[in-house]
């Protein structure tokens, strides 16, 4: 690691508690963004070469360090009291999916889509900092809206953030038309 900028980048990523944008790194290092980009590549290589305990992480278009997979990550997680990703129920994943795709979105809309009250699930996701408040919706009785956080991007390894989520429509699914036909069959039979 002969390039001093590589060491500078490592130090900045080390002290930051939040993932950093290229611009923030460049400003604090007092160099331009392309130099930082190059130094980050050098850092990634250098960490890999010596089998370091941390690896470069890119989530939501921002940079940070995280514990290397395997033994280092396991030991590091034992030191942390809270693991935001542990024990997420199917209901929590469903709610997280609704927030991720529709954000900002409020509890009434989440409940409408899922068909059950989502209050407890939303509270749990807030506590894990996977979602956060994002103002209130327009109109009367404006509900509190939620969006996903950088913790969400990091835990799910979304390099580009939610813009990297796949489209909601898939080809192999039973589509609305077929569902309607099946339900019509019930209705016709019973009518």
């Amino acid at each position, binding site marked *: 690691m002969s390039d001093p900028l590589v060491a500078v980048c490592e130090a900045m990523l080390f002290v930051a508690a939040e993932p950093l944008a290229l611009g923030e790194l460049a400003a604090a290092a007092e160099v331009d963004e392309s130099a930082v980009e190059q130094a980050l590549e050098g850092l990634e290589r250098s960490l890999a070469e010596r089998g370091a305990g941390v690896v470069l992480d890119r989530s939501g278009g921002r940079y940070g360090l995280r514990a290397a997979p395997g033994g280092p990550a396991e030991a590091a997680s034992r030191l942390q009291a809270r693991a935001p990703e542990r024990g997420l129920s199917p209901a929590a994943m469903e709610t997280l*999916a609704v927030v991720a*795709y529709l954000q900002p979105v409020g509890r009434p809309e989440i409940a409408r889509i899922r068909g059950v009250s989502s209050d407890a699930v939303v509270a749990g996701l807030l506590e894990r900092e996977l979602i956060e408040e994002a103002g209130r919706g327009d109109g009367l009785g*404006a509900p509190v809206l939620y969006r996903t956080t950088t913790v969400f991007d990091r835990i799910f390894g979304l390099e580009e953030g939610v813009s990297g989520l*796949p489209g909601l429509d898939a080809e192999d699914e039973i589509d609305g038309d077929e569902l309607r036909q099946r339900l019509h069959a019930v209705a016709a039979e019973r009518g």
Partner: protein
Amino acid sequence: MNGSVLELDLDFDAFSGPFDLLLALVLRDELELVEVPIVEVVLAYLVVLEGSEEIDLESLSEFLVLVAALCELKSRLLVDADEEDEEEIDAEGAAEELAARLAEYQRFKRAAGWLTARRAEAGLRVFRTTPAPYAPPRPAAPLVDEQPGRLAEAILHLLEPPIHVDTTIVRRRVVAMRPFVERFRMLVRARGGFVFDDEVATLERGAQAAAFVALLELIKRGEATAAQTDLFEPIRVARTGATIRVAAQVVDAQEAVA
């Protein structure tokens, strides 16, 4: 009637809500869809759900109305002639609406599946989310000047009464369940039973759905049993002794009387 909740081999705990359950039922290939006692299954499921405090009365009422209309239960249960401004919702309309809702739900269920797989693939990701031990202290972000009018705006926002956005063809109305619980309890205790259909015949749909949830509540508490001699026959409610299992309640009660 064909089948029972038990024969369908459904694990209610595996469903994350009524749409999840209905989707699973509708997608079943091995059963003739028309043979599935959808209403009974859904009602039995709702009894379980009620016990888990995850009931959202508003979405539940709406869901019940749609399912009931779909299965033409409405001809017996949901007579609604007096209500002038309320659009009649026929079985076709209910199917349209339910299909749209199921399709929407299905998309998010699949997205949740993708996220779950993504989580597994990402592996254990451990970050520090606090400042580093020897890091220089971060100065508090300087506050920008604000207009006091924004405070008044925020309070006025909180003073606005809530409305319930109507996104469906069904007009939603939140109806209190408690009066029904009390009325049904009184009928069961005083007369030993009643015919549910007679009790709700003159009510509008939202109230009928709430009445049904109230009935489920009484059944769940072991205060009553409900039975039908056949699928679309009137539901007869009777006083009961204790020990009743929740999941199979509707079906059990039905078999007992039949």
